[in-house]
């Protein structure tokens, strides 16, 4: 179920009404059922993967803290994903579940149980470390198989062909489950936090399962931390008017970004980055600017809707965007763009690698490794790896070169040099988006090639399309200018109520002027 579908407009109020009517303990059950239903609306089969991740990290989390479940409890939970697949196999023949899929899911459950019991019985010292490895291996194996298997097989095949070997392997038909990178990382972060003793394990399976599958942020983040979300779920919120006011405001801003800005910019970006399009410089620039605003509005719009939906339930999710296009340096950009992912990589990869504590070259190496992996996280395509490497190179460049280094100012009042720093960083960001959006490395070459062709007759007239883009970006920029003094992008509380009412009305009118079609969010594919 997508946030911009009519189904969500029935689902959310129904959940909300029941949620606030039920006693606190029952609410979790409602949230879990609602979250599973929300996810199953995409593909009922892949709920087994969510269950598998939940079961693995729930058991490992407790075991790391030295509070292992009893073997029969671990076994029972381990068989849950298989039981789900069996249920679908029996009750939903149209779901397309085969006997082999059923055996694999049961087999994975039993393998986890076996490994868990093996550690329990055989390992005496550093058991927590082994449980951590068990969790990381199983979760990354699931993610790796569904997201990267074909990518690596195909790349290896190309490599073999490159050195003269021929192979007739065919790729597996693997469907990428929606949101797998998000919930896997969230779950892994929880286990690592327990291992580091940054947060206690969650003893209640219902609470943990709800944390893992909480519908507002399950498929596209923010990637929450256990220590932020689990206590909120455990304690339960009492109803406050501000929950509803803030939640609705966030959702309105989110819908405005997604439906009015992102979906309309997408028309031009899709055309410009279509391999069939013959580009010139004008369309190359127009396309990348359109995509820059599309991806920002799409993803931050999703986040706003997610945060708004959670807020209606009395739950605060972390912010994910803070005016990223106003950044002065790459490090500032990554502190403002997809904050939950960049802090995840910082806390669980960059710092364990040594962060900036070692020699200068080690810091630069760590930056490069983290950014390449962050790029790969976005998808199984070399353009994402290149995009990550490009941002890694930018981070290194700004650290190494004194001229760029001088542009690095701490967060604070704007200075005259920001007039140079912000446009320069924006330019670098746009180039990054060209890499990110290109369907392939070869197409990226065409995009750069088009920058050398400024013959307006070479392709379609671009002026009217630029006007179309400006019409859709200008209201967003006005909104950003109005709120940029504040941390929260959707903050409008400081605006006088009459003006606020007018802004809300205009947003509603702009949203409804932009169509009735449900368009998916970009980050669902990641």
């Amino acid at each position, binding site marked *: 179920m997508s946030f911009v579908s009519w189904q969500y407009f029935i689902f959310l109020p129904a959940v909300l009404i029941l949620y606030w009517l039920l006693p606190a303990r029952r609410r979790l059950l409602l949230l879990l059922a609602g979250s599973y239903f929300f996810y199953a609306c995409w593909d009922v089969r892949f709920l087994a993967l969510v269950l598998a991740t939940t079961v693995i990290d729930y058991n490992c989390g407790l075991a790391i803290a030295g509070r292992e479940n009893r073997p029969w409890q671990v076994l029972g939970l381990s068989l849950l994903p298989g039981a789900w697949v069996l249920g679908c196999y029996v009750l939903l023949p149209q779901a397309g579940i085969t006997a082999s899929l059923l055996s694999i899911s049961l087999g994975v459950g039993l393998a986890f149980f076996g490994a868990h019991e093996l550690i329990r019985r055989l390992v005496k010292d550093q058991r927590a470390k082994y449980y951590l490895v068990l969790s990381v291996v199983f979760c990354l194996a699931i993610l790796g198989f569904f997201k990267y298997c074909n990518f690596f097989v195909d790349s290896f095949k190309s490599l073999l062909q490159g050195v003269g070997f021929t192979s007739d392997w065919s790729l597996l038909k693997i469907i990428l489950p929606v949101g797998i990178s998000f919930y896997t990382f969230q779950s892994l972060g929880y286990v690592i936090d327990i291992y580091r003793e940054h947060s206690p394990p969650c003893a209640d399976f219902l609470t943990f399962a709800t944390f893992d599958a909480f519908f507002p942020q399950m498929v596209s983040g923010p990637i929450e931390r256990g220590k932020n979300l689990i206590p909120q779920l455990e304690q339960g919120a009492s109803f406050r008017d501000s929950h509803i*006011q803030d939640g609705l405001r966030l959702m309105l801003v989110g819908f405005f970004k997604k439906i009015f800005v992102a979906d309309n910019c997408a028309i031009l970006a899709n055309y410009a980055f279509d391999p069939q399009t013959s580009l010139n410089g004008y369309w190359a620039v127009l396309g990348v600017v359109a995509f820059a605003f599309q991806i920002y509005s799409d993803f931050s719009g999703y986040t706003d809707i997610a945060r708004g939906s959670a807020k209606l339930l009395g739950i605060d999710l972390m912010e994910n965007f803070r005016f990223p296009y106003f950044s002065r340096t790459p490090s500032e950009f990554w502190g403002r763009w997809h904050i939950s992912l960049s802090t995840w990589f910082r806390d669980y990869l960059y710092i364990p690698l040594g962060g900036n504590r070692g020699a200068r070259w080690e810091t630069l190496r760590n930056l490069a490794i983290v950014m390449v992996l962050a790029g790969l996280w976005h998808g199984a395509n070399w353009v994402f790896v290149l995009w990550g490497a490009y941002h890694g190179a930018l981070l290194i460049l700004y650290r190494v070169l004194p001229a760029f280094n001088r542009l690095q100012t701490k967060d604070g009042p704007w200075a005259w040099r920001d007039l140079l720093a912000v446009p320069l960083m924006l330019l670098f960001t746009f180039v990054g988006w060209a890499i990110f959006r290109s369907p392939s490395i070869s197409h990226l070459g065409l995009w750069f090639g088009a920058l050398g062709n400024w013959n307006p007759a070479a392709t379609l007239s671009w002026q009217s399309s630029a006007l179309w883009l400006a019409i859709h970006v200008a209201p967003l920029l006005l909104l950003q200018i109005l709120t940029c003094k504040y941390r929260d992008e959707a903050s409008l509380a400081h605006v006088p109520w009459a003006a606020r009412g007018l802004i809300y009305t205009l947003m509603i009118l702009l949203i409804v002027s932009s169509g009735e079609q449900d368009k998916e969010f970009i980050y669902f594919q990641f």
Partner: protein
Amino acid sequence: MKRLITPACLTVLCLLVLAEVGARVFFAEDISGRFDYGYNPQAGFAEHADGTVELFRAGGRRFYPQTFQRQRPPGVLRIMTVGDSVPRGPSLKGAYPGLLGQELRRRDIPAESINLAVPGYGARRCQIVLRQALQYNPSLIILHFDDYNKWEDEREWRRSQEFKGWHPRHWLMKLFIFRRLYEAKMEKVFWPLVPEEVRLRYAVNDADAQVAAGADPKEVAARIKLAYDTAVENVALVRQRQIPIILVTQCRLEEDAQHRLYLTDHGLDQLGESLKGPGVFHVSMKKVLSGQDIKSIFTNFSGHLHQAGHQVLANAICEKIKAERAALGQTGPNVAVAGTSPAPQTLTPEADPVPGKP
């Protein structure tokens, strides 16, 4: 709980409610039948107590404002033209129906020519307008015959059905201001600003699907067949009332690979000829305009004409009426010709099967 309704929230509600109520109160006539998207059997015709009938924009019918007597004045040739944006023309006076009326009057033939053409109307919706027109004693029907608006007909039919349906997907768009805003943006901003090739590539909406279908030979054949079938029904409908009809078959200006201009009728002329019979006449736009400087009389690569083109067409139809007057039964001003030609083909009021009644 009281604080849920904040002043800002109230402002939003008030503004939206005011806009919606205002639209429904002050533009009630325009809204009437608006969401039938041209499929309302009554919209756009207002009968007044003084015996006049007024045409106005409503129910998806963007008629030119016109007024005529419900009862056709004796001895006056009442011509009603049904079609799409081509016969609607650049203005009421500058379109060929208006020019035809002038031309006939110039030749001392008392005539009133009523332009019932609506932009974007295909055969299916034209038939509904035709049924309305037949209620007002026309002496002659001119049916502008085109195949191009099938997609628009289907889209508008779907919209009208969706709008009547219960599906939650359409609840929001049941508000007049929302729906109108969406349509206005689509028609006034999206289409003019985003190049057709871009829209076409992704079929962003059904309008693009229409354009894409125009490039598909199967779709073209299907829409020609539909246009033909509906035209046969329309001719039968008119002939049931023993009213003469002139079919004007559409042609379009196109350009070949060598940038040479040519006119194409998509085979409509052949269909028009095949429908000819007693009381059914055919005027081919392609034949009429072929000898002209086509670059100057067409507005662009479409069937739309400048006023000069409309004038040529009006003259041709006028000549047709003169040439076929024996068959049509009209010989001159105020001449009742009952008995000189078969009643079904006469253009005089006396020929009405049920005068003044639908």
